[in-house]
């Protein structure tokens, strides 16, 4: 496990005049409502989490859950009432103004819900802003800004004013402005919420692509579960200022921590979230140096009609059927003669909705293979429908090799 880039430790934010009292009351286990009666609003309630290098960490919750407050404490736009925030081990809350500015200029950039572009500056000048205030010379900041614009697909739009651009393009400018500083961490506060659904989808895809290219650490705030599941490597669900559950999208869906999480995920379209790796089973395999007789024997034992053939490093070579094996047994052919090498294969992150067609058009089970061509599991026809009916609990193949 990599060292976390941001560590949030027991961070609390209370609004109101009597924060000291509020902290004590929270420690005594009083609820948000009880504190509200005393005129203290709980923004964030003792949240602890680690954000790892290079991941997209989604903080999700409904409005009023404290997610926007939490993300603003990560760059101290809002001062926490208590707790610790470490960036690469350094305490953000102990920094003086100059050190904090340095962090904001070079290490943590932010993208805003309503874009927050400066309307009096051109697109290029907007992107240059972060470099300009660092007093980077005009030539190199222009180059960097143009690179950032190119990265978000807005090459040649630099001379336009922000209000001449569509919403999606404006947010690309917002993204470019944040990337131009080459920060380690991007904070994205409901960055796509103001966009049309279709454009939002595109932006999500591009963000994932960008992140793969640039390996930034992204903290993404959203109230939209589908968005969280689509882009998040890990998701933190918040309610009333408290953290309810942290986990991968799969964990949130398959092992909800409590009833609140369950209700939250109730309406999710599972076919777009669950992937091949969720529904695959352990494959029955054989290596090529065995004979047809062994293969037949194995199939009979397991009650199946085909076997996947792999080499010693578990790479998939193909599939053999019971019919062919019994034929080969009679005629004395080897396994390699009856191998069907063009059997259907899918990568483990294929979503279920893309598996329907593949499973219905083939006689043999679908092989799930990784990038090296190694066989991870198989998907039998009924498993896809079973999973959609909520039957992912068995999940016997919580394959360790998948996550290693």
């Amino acid at each position, binding site marked *: 496990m990599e060292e976390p880039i941001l560590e949030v430790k027991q961070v609390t934010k209370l609004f109101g005049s009597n924060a000291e009292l509020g902290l004590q009351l929270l420690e005594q286990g009083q609820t948000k409502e009880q504190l509200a009666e005393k005129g203290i609003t709980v923004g964030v309630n003792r949240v602890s989490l680690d954000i790892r290098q290079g991941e997209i960490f989604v903080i999700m919750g409904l409005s009023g859950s404290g997610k926007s407050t939490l993300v603003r404490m990560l760059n101290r736009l809002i001062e926490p009432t208590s707790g610790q925030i470490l960036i690469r081990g350094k305490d953000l809350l102990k920094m003086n103004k100059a050190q904090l500015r340095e962090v*904001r*200029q070079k290490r943590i950039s*932010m993208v805003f819900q309503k874009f*927050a572009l*400066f309307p009096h500056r051109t697109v290029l000048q907007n992107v240059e*802003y*972060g470099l300009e*205030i660092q007093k980077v010379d005009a030539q190199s900041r222009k180059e960097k800004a143009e690179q950032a614009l190119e990265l978000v697909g807005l090459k040649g739009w630099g001379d336009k004013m922000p209000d001449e651009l569509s919403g999606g393009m404006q947010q690309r400018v917002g993204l470019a402005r944040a990337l131009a500083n080459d920060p380690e961490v991007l904070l994205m506060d409901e960055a796509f919420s103001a966009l049309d659904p279709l454009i939002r989808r595109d932006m999500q895809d591009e963000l994932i692509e960008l992140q793969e290219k640039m390996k930034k650490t992204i903290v993404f705030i959203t109230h939209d579960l589908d968005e969280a599941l689509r882009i998040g490597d890990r998701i933190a669900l918040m309610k009333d200022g408290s953290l309810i559950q942290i986990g991968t999208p799969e964990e949130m869906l398959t092992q909800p921590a409590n009833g609140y999480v369950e209700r939250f995920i109730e309406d999710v379209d599972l076919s777009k979230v669950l992937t091949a790796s969720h529904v695959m089973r352990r494959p029955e395999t054989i290596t090529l140096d065995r004979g047809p007789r062994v293969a037949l024997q194995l199939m009979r034992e397991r009650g199946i009609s085909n076997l996947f053939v792999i080499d010693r490093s578990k790479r998939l070579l193909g599939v053999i059927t019971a019919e062919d094996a019994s034929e080969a047994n009679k005629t004395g052919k080897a396994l390699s003669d009856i191998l069907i090498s063009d059997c259907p294969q899918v990568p483990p992150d294929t979503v279920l909705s893309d598996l329907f067609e593949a499973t219905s058009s083939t006689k043999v089970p679908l092989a799930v293979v990784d990038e090296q061509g190694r066989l991870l599991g198989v998907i039998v026809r009924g498993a896809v429908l079973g999973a959609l009916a909520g039957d992912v609990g068995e999940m016997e193949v919580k394959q360790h090799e998948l996550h290693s």
Partner: protein
Amino acid sequence: MSFIPKIPLADWIEYIVDWMESNLGGFFEGLSKIIESVVEFFSWLFLLPHPLLFIVIFGVLAYLIGRIPLTLFTVIGFLLIDNLGYWTETMNTLGLVVTSGIISVVLGIPIGIWSAYSKTTHRIVSPLLDFMQTMPAFVYLLPAVTFFSLGVVPGVIASVIFAIPPTIRLTHLGIKQVSGELTEAADAFGSTSWQKLFKVELPLAMPTMMAGVNQTIMLSLSMVVIASMIGAQGIGATVYRAVTQLKIGQGFEAGLAVVVLAIVLDRFTQNLFKSKKRGA
């Protein structure tokens, strides 16, 4: 209420004015010299070219700033003033207005910014501005004369007191109107307070601030007749003289000159900043 003795407010004020006069006399004298020389410089500058040359210069400026109607109005209006024989007086008045306009902007914008940043300052400044705008001008004209003696300087001071409030108020408003998201963005990228002010807040507040400056110039122009009562030279003095001598026709002529100057100044200040905005 007779059991409460009358508060001797009048005595207090007189005492304060006396005290200021005897203790701060040197300061007022120095200030007076500076203001007087600024007004004289502008009057000299405006009277330096021949009226026709001046009119051509203003015509070209009007054309550059904006529109042909403004150019026509400027040229015809100024020609009329020259024709009626009020050129020198009008230019003296322009010098006074420009001086009090500059003083108002130089003082007003920082005060406006300060009151936008500090609630306490705003709480103190705001009623003070009400006071300055509603207190009849004659009331502070007298102490102004005591401090600065007769002439153009108390006129400038009275104009500034009367005319500075819109600049302060609209600077305050302009900065307050800058959306919280934008100042937050400026902070999030690590701007210093000065960078935030000069790169984000002031540019965005500029149109509102300029509406204030425009109002300030109009108000200080409206003070020229009152200023002439304490010896400020210019077209205001002509109006004042004509009215006291019941020369209705002459009073009307001179009044027309004020109107022409007012409209030209108003359109100039308005359009100047619009065209700037377009160019940015």
